[in-house]
């Protein structure tokens, strides 16, 4: 069970870090929409889990935030990836690829 939660949380971190690494500062709604768009609507992050994850990642120093005016001129919290977040991203990305490749190998053998 613990393993499962860590994997899910790790996946959300990976998606968010990857999304932010490819863009400038984004607020939560944009992050969520961008993940849905780039995954062609296959991945829909649970928005209620996205915000706790953003705050956890900010406390870990992987992202930082700033209040700015949004496109339609409302105050929104914008996130961007830090240097330590980029390092974290390549770590998690690598772990993810290893995991997926392992599963694929098993699927081909079975």
């Amino acid at each position, binding site marked *: 069970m613990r393993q499962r939660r860590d994997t899910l949380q790790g996946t959300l971190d990976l998606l968010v870090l990857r999304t932010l690494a490819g863009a400038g500062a984004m607020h*939560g709604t944009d992050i969520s929409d961008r993940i849905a768009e780039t995954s062609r609507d296959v991945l829909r992050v649970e928005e209620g889990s996205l915000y706790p994850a953003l705050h956890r990642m900010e406390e870990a120093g992987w992202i930082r935030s700033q209040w700015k005016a949004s496109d339609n001129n409302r105050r929104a919290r914008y996130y961007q990836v830090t240097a330590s977040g980029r390092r974290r991203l390549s770590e998690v990305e690598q772990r993810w690829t290893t995991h997926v490749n392992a599963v694929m190998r098993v699927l081909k053998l079975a």
Partner: protein
Amino acid sequence: MSVLTRFFNLFRLTSLDRELDEELRFHLAERARRNAAAGMSRQDAEAAALDRFGSVARAKAGMRAAHVAARPMVAVSVLTIVMIVGGALGTAVYRSGSGQRVYDISAEVTAPVPVVTPHPEYTAAAKRAKIQGSVRVRCVVRPEGVCADVTVIRSLDRTFGLDDEALRALRDWRFRPALRAGGPVATRVDFEIRFTLR
């Protein structure tokens, strides 16, 4: 933990809560706006935004937990160092920039008592750089109960903002002033502000 510390922790929590609320309110309004732009009625757009979000209370608890778990400790202790620079006990040891007589704490001069003590913030940069230790700050507590001439006498960190945070916090402290012969006087007091990461 003193009643005052608890009170200020409470205050900090509520200011954090206000920020979390504002962020979530923005999200729900923005999601509803996008839903409406995609052709939903206003009412459906709002309902769908809430539906997609799930429990707001649970999300807020998760966000709050992220901060509370990571909040480092900042401890402030008052060092009332008695320094006889000149003259007999209880006489003015020097005059401040504004010409006011300033005393050191002694048998004749009681220590000022802090009554409002907002804590310094641990800057995010200092947390990332894992800076820990203490800043020693000297100030003159004026008869009006505020700090003047606040200076760092032993630095911890000029780069990531902890020295500045220590100065900023002390400028906001309020005191019951020191008393000499029953009347309020200015005193020189040193503080040690310790920044500790858990």
